[in-house]
């Protein structure tokens, strides 16, 4: 099976490539990048055959499919190192199949699923279940993240070795902080053995307790209990110091404050093995989005101030923050339809991430498209040791084709995720995903 992505702007930061060319995919691998490949398909790979337009009935198994990519960007597939797919336990909210399908629709060829499922993904059998369901779905790849502690209770270390053996790519107690510094120390040391990052939900629980939004002028106005920036920063610095002590790889999840940016910058200067992520919503929205108690603007960490947003944008541009991750967190619609303090945290992100990032980062001239692809594809692959993130010859053919200029209006009802909880509902954003290819298979194609 051969796919030719014809005439797109091939943008692959992993090999400093930015040119209009064709990309040939043969038997699930990147075969070649060059001009005029579509005109001489027989020269590509072993199995050249009749040319077919994709979607035409009866594209032969060994046939060549040509996808017209003119005016579009062809890049390594996006990789989301942080999402919640809710299976097992909350299948009415999301399944691995619907989550992986939403990921494919959003241009993600791989996502990492957080272990705060029910039961918690804290052992090899549970990790294997996630991996199996992902294979069955055959959409975006889904890499399981195992829990740090049994049941995410923060007491007993989970079996990292067996979980890695079953397919886990990282460990995390995401959703909850690791309260015990000693347990975090041990996790960082033990994770070193398996060369996996410890993905860290930074939240000092006594400071954040009961908080529903950022602590500041808006929380005071609305009479909502606030979560101070320091609740995040205290844990970020604690765990960077523990990474310094242990040499382990700490990956700081969903960083949301200006202070955290300064701390990460310091940590990297010190040579600490730290990486960090930021979510599209923390790069685009402020606490003002809460408006009059809009639960679709409630997430943890909360939306902060414009000064925080600006610091985060600068940090993700200069690489202080390594990657952009969605923290995709679907909820049932009626869970969000309640009093603000009682509503659950989180928003869906897989199908809006690309457009939010293009709208608020590229179009707003914060960063180039090349840097955005690095933060959404190349760097996530590198720091989580995942395949993909490149269009080099022989690499698995995980490719995203997108239109960086097309405007669209967000309509949650059309999402593939089961979640409808988005603060971007009704907004006009720029940037649409066009085609997603995983392992040489087209898993998403926008219908016109």
């Amino acid at each position, binding site marked *: 099976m051969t796919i030719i992505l014809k005439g797109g702007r091939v943008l692959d930061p992993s090999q400093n490539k930015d040119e209009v060319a064709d990309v040939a995919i043969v038997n699930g691998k990147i075969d070649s990048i060059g001009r005029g490949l579509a005109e001489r398909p027989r020269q590509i790979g072993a199995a050249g055959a009749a040319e077919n337009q994709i979607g035409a009935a009866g594209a032969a198994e060994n046939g060549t499919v040509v996808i017209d990519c003119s005016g579009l960007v062809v890049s390594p597939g996006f990789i989301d190192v942080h999402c919640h797919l809710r299976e097992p336990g909350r299948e009415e909210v999301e399944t691995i199949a619907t989550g992986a399908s939403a990921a494919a629709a959003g241009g993600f060829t791989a996502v990492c699923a957080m272990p705060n499922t029910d039961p918690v993904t804290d052992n090899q059998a549970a990790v294997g279940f996630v991996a199996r369901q992902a294979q069955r779905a055959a959409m975006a790849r889904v890499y399981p993240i195992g829990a740090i502690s049994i049941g995410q209770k923060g007491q007993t270390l989970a079996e990292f070795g067996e979980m890695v053996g079953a397919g886990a790519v990282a460990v995390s107690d995401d959703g909850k902080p690791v309260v015990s510094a000693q347990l975090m120390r041990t996790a960082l040391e033990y994770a070193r053995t398996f060369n996996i990052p410890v993905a860290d939900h930074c939240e000092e629980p006594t400071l954040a307790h009961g908080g529903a939004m950022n602590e500041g002028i808006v929380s005071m106005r609305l009479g*909502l209990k606030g979560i101070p920036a320091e609740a995040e920063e205290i844990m970020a610095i604690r765990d960077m110091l523990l990474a310094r002590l242990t040499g382990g790889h700490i990956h700081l999840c969903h960083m949301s404050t200006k202070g955290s940016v300064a701390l990460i910058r310091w940590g990297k200067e010190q040579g600490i093995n730290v990486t960090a992520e930021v979510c599209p919503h923390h790069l685009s929205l402020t606490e003002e989005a809460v408006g009059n*108690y809009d639960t679709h603007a409630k997430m943890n960490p909360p939306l902060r101030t414009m000064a925080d947003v600006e610091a985060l944008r600068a940090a993700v541009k200069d690489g202080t923050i390594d990657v952009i991750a969605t923290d995709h967190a679907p909820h049932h619609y009626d869970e969000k339809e*309640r009093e*603000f303090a009682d509503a659950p945290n989180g928003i869906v992100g897989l199908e809006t991430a690309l457009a939010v990032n293009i709208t608020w980062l590229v179009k707003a001239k914060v960063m180039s498209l090349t840097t955005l692809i690095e933060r959404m594809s190349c760097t996530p692959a590198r720091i989580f040791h995942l395949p993909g993130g490149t269009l080099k010859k022989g690499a698995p053919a995980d490719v995203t084709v997108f239109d960086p200029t097309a405007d669209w209006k967000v309509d949650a009802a059309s999402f593939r995720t089961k979640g409808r909880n988005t603060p971007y509902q009704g907004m006009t954003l720029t940037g649409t995903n066009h085609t997603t290819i995983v392992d040489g298979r087209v898993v998403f194609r926008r219908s016109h």
Partner: protein
Amino acid sequence: MNAPASNAPLGKDLLALEPLSSQQIQLILDTAEPFKEISERAIKKVPTLRGATIVNLFFEASTRTRISFEFAEKRLSADTVNVASTGSSVSKGETLVDTARNLEAMRIDMVVIRHGASGAAHFLANRIESNVINAGDGTHEHPTQGLLDMLTLRDRFKKLQGLKVCIVGDVLHSRVARSNIWGLQKMGAEVAVCGPRSLLPNAIDDFGVTVFDRVEAAIEWADALNVLRLQLERMQAGYIPSLREYNRVFGVSRDRIERAKKDIVILHPGPMNRGVEIDSDVADGPFSVILDQVTNGVAIRMAVLYLLSGGKAELADKAKGVE
């Protein structure tokens, strides 16, 4: 939604004082004037809201506010139903959205809601066509309390412009404090707060209020003190070490009041913890207007009910003529 009906000078709902203009607040205060007199009559009833059905939906225990609203409604001849449901919305079986839908299905005209969650009144108002009056939502606002405090101050000082009012106590958790800050500032008063820093919002400095760390300094500065109730839970939650120390440092005592150079007016939204935030001889003393607040509460609520039900502004104009 909050879209004002063409003939409704306050819009559909009264959820907070923050979004109101000074003209709207002035209108409510002026409209309350003629309603004061109704409560002084032998037959305390006018037919203004005859045929209107009002539900008093109280998710939190309340005596004063609930009775005050009920009197206001009855003196305007409305048909009222009281629904008291304590316990949190989560522990309760029915969600607030279902409660809202059920009320709507019964074709009621107005809802007065008291709820422990900030934003609950907004939540309800966005989902039903009926007028919604916020009778206190979590730590957000208690607009009719703010209004009756202002009416009481205006009675005493004849104006609010330039008046110096200090709110003393647990501003962090107080919906009364927020409504007072917004309302008084809009009416041109100078507002200060005084209390332990652990019970003041961090962002207080951004609200254009003066902060006093010492109650003595606050008393020295103020024309009036609005003394907030200190909830016992605040001590249990560790915001202050003890009620005893609170009384010694921040308690409004007769000694402290008498040391002030000028007479000072004392307000308290109630219920009072005598001997904690306020000493009995202050609460019962000559400077206290605490019972005037209660009397004015009925008039303010009558005015709000009248204006939300489509009542005309002329009533206030007439009142101003009388004044």
